[in-house]
């Protein structure tokens, strides 16, 4: 066991972890960051995606010890004073969610995309989000949501 320190959604958190523990499990089970989901546990579905040091990673393929000292941002962390962020509002308004299980991963990934490029082409959106699966098939609404939120990102 070793102690690691993570800054999760702006808050410094410590956890005792074993070397073979995955970031996914530590976030969920030790730090209770439950927006981080999983559906394949091997890097295919993308539902465990988080921003780690401002890079999107699939946390089922990251060791917790590797993440020691890292900054982690997840869908919960985009909420400010109880208000959802523009991308979250757009997901709500455009109906870009059904069962909602994949939604946090699409939200944090779309947030990252718009931060890098507030005016992505349809092709860029499709390529950027191609590592995530939504079985309910909200993909067209997700594209609408990104379009709906891009103004807010352009003015940031």
């Amino acid at each position, binding site marked *: 066991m070793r102690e690691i320190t993570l800054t999760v959604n702006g808050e410094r958190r410590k956890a005792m972890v074993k070397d073979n523990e995955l970031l996914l499990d530590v976030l969920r089970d030790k730090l209770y960051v439950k927006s981080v989901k999983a559906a394949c546990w091997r890097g295919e579905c993308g539902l465990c995606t988080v921003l780690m040091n401002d890079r999107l990673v699939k946390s089922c393929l990251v060791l917790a010890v590797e993440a020691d000292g890292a900054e982690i941002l997840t869908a919960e962390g985009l909420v400010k004073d109880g208000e959802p962020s523009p991308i979250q509002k757009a997901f709500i308004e455009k*109906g870009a969610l*059904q069962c909602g299980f994949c939604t946090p991963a699409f939200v944090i990934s779309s947030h990252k995309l718009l931060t890098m490029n507030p005016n992505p082409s349809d092709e860029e959106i499709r390529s950027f989000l191609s590592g995530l699966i939504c079985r309910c098939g909200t993909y067209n609404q997700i594209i609408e949501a990104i379009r709906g939120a891009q103004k807010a990102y352009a003015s940031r």
Partner: protein
Amino acid sequence: MAGKFVGKPIPPQDAFLKATGTAPYNYDIELPGMLYAKLVTSTVPHGRIKRINVEEALKVPGVVKVVTGKDIPYMVGMYAGDRDLLAIEKVRWVGHPVAAVIAESLEAAERAAELVDVEYEELPAVFDPLEAMKPGAPLIHEHMEKYRRLPVFKPVPGTNIANKFRVVRGDVETALKEADIVIEEEFHIKHVSHAFMETQNVIAHWHLDGTIEIWTSWQNPNPVRQIMAESFGIPYNKIIVKIPFVGGGFGGKAGLGWEALVAVLSREAGHRPVKLVLSRKEQFTSGACREGFHAFVKAGFKKDGRFIAYDVKYVLDAGGYADYTVNVGRAVAYSADGSYEIPNIRCEAYTVYTNKVPTTALRGFGYSESHWVLEQVIERAAKKLGMDSAEVRRINLIKPGVSITATGERLREDVGNPRKVLESILQEIGWGKPSEKPKEPWKIRAKGVALLVKGPAQPPKAPSSAAIKFNEDGTINLLVSTGNFGQGTVTALAQIVAEEFGVPLESVRVDWIRDTHSAPYSWQTVGSRGLFTDGIAVLNAVKDAKRQIFKVASEALRCPEEYLELVNGEVRVKGKPWMKIPLKDIVMGYSYPDGTSIGGPIIGRGVYMSVHTTNLDPETGQGHPTIFHTYGGTGVEIELDLLTGEIKVLKAVQAFDIGRVINPLLLKQQFHGGFIMGMSIALFEEIKFDERGWVLNPNFTSYYVARIKDVPPVVEKFVETPQADGPYGARGVGELTMIGVAPAIANAIFNAIGVKLNNLPMTPEEVWKAIKAQRPDLIEKAVKEYQKKMKEVKAVA
């Protein structure tokens, strides 16, 4: 009637929680003192268990217990009753759970599960249902006559046939002889996975007093309770099933789940709560999927296009257990005639055990299969008759109020308008106008259409109920057990209540936990029935609450009830708006200025009962199988690359007669989502087995599910022919949106190049093989075109 809420594009009420990642799913829930279970599964397709050695496993620190089938010899099920909790004596497929390890941590459970050593005596296995049906095939269930099944299901003891079902109407033999043309074909569909994102997972706590508490990722709590109560012989009120947010269902969380197993594990582990989460591989190999399917058809048409005879045999590859698939075998047969009136029909469906993964319902079950066949038959016949397939569809389309279905049901006047559905698809897709020529001459573009109809496949008695409970401030708790796994039905129900009471939508709340103990009964949330059945129950509950409210208001305002109205959350005297009482002053009882009070807390109750449905005749399948019919269809424009066999959908049109739009945003989600799931299953998805019955692709790399890069634009066409008894005239639609996709795509290819695609999925390889077998010239021509184009490129350069 344009409502304040009904008909408005309102986001799902739980969207805030979902978008912020704070909605609790069962996967997220932990109970104090919880233990973890891990399955040990069979490595042979069919065999007797000789010995299970658990000694090494028990040595792993943290292991509490290892349970095997002989410790818990229960048989469970909803329809066929054929399932053990853990294999008893023998295993029936690779992946069949044989033992369960219970430990203090998931890691310990996994370590120990790796150490459980099982010895088998292998038995001859059978993987092909056509072989499995034959006399002398290895028997997979030797004693199925002993299973506790619903009486409508008819297994054939001494065979592997779990259910045989027939629909017979008219005289198909004679009609086939009288037909001018006969289409004779075979169609096949491979196994597919629901691929819901949240894998099946359960927490069970068998309390010391015998109360069983279940937390599960399931579509609706009542069937879970029913299966457990009936299988264990426990009173229903000692089982409490709670369902939080659910990460997708698609029919795969409707029938038999893991709850009974995990409950028993909790009891065995000293009454501590136990959680079981399936990994994706386990979901593929130990959970249930959609059955494999084979159809053998003869269809007779007259020269004028009339469809006069349909003779079809379906064989369903149900795998090791067929608990729900026996019902798929009924639905596929009584939906054989689709949207058409076919006077002579004979349809036999066999649900057959094989040594493969078990199977269950999947979104649109039975109907997806029957329409894959029927809608292609129409297209083939049109070509053979030299007619426009749209015209053949028009000629045979059912006529509301006149036509009689395959099961002998005369369709109601208000059943919907399939003709309007067809015409709106044809118009939107530009039927009859050739597609734009693709720039690459080795590709072709084509258009295809498929119609469909579906009603909820259910037993005749399948009621629902709802309660409306007012709070002190006039806000409302709407109590239903309607499942909430992505469809948004509960939002639509809340809209209805807000509309009826004239209160803000925020005032109506449906809790996010479905709970058998506090929510009124609803049979199941399946078959696209939630809005219809539970919506009617809700409207009846509204009526009941209003009656109570008006009674109190009438006394308080000293005014007969017929002069009162409910507007904007107030009871008013008609024409005298200053004479009014806000709801909040009534719903806990009304107090006069002197403090004396009348009435009391208001609880409205309402029910839905399926009054139209009947049992089907065991010999002929005649009767009323469903509570409504929703007609619809799908049109596509596709592009086919003749070099690779790859099909790309360029445009999709979805048209459904949903009776009345309650929420266009939620409806749009279903139209798009269903298309995408349907397209993914049509073009990509297949569970592959090796010759020993092992699943070869239990993952999302080689079992490919459509990603965002694969989806086309979808055009939604809402057709609104109200159904008199539907809530605001509405009908259900959730599942239907994927049923027409595959046949529409296949029809497009057939229209364009005459190549028949009888097998699903239509992967590039499958399509290439079909073209190579039927039109090899097209591939060689495509290669030449490609070379020619290259030379042109070169010449320009």
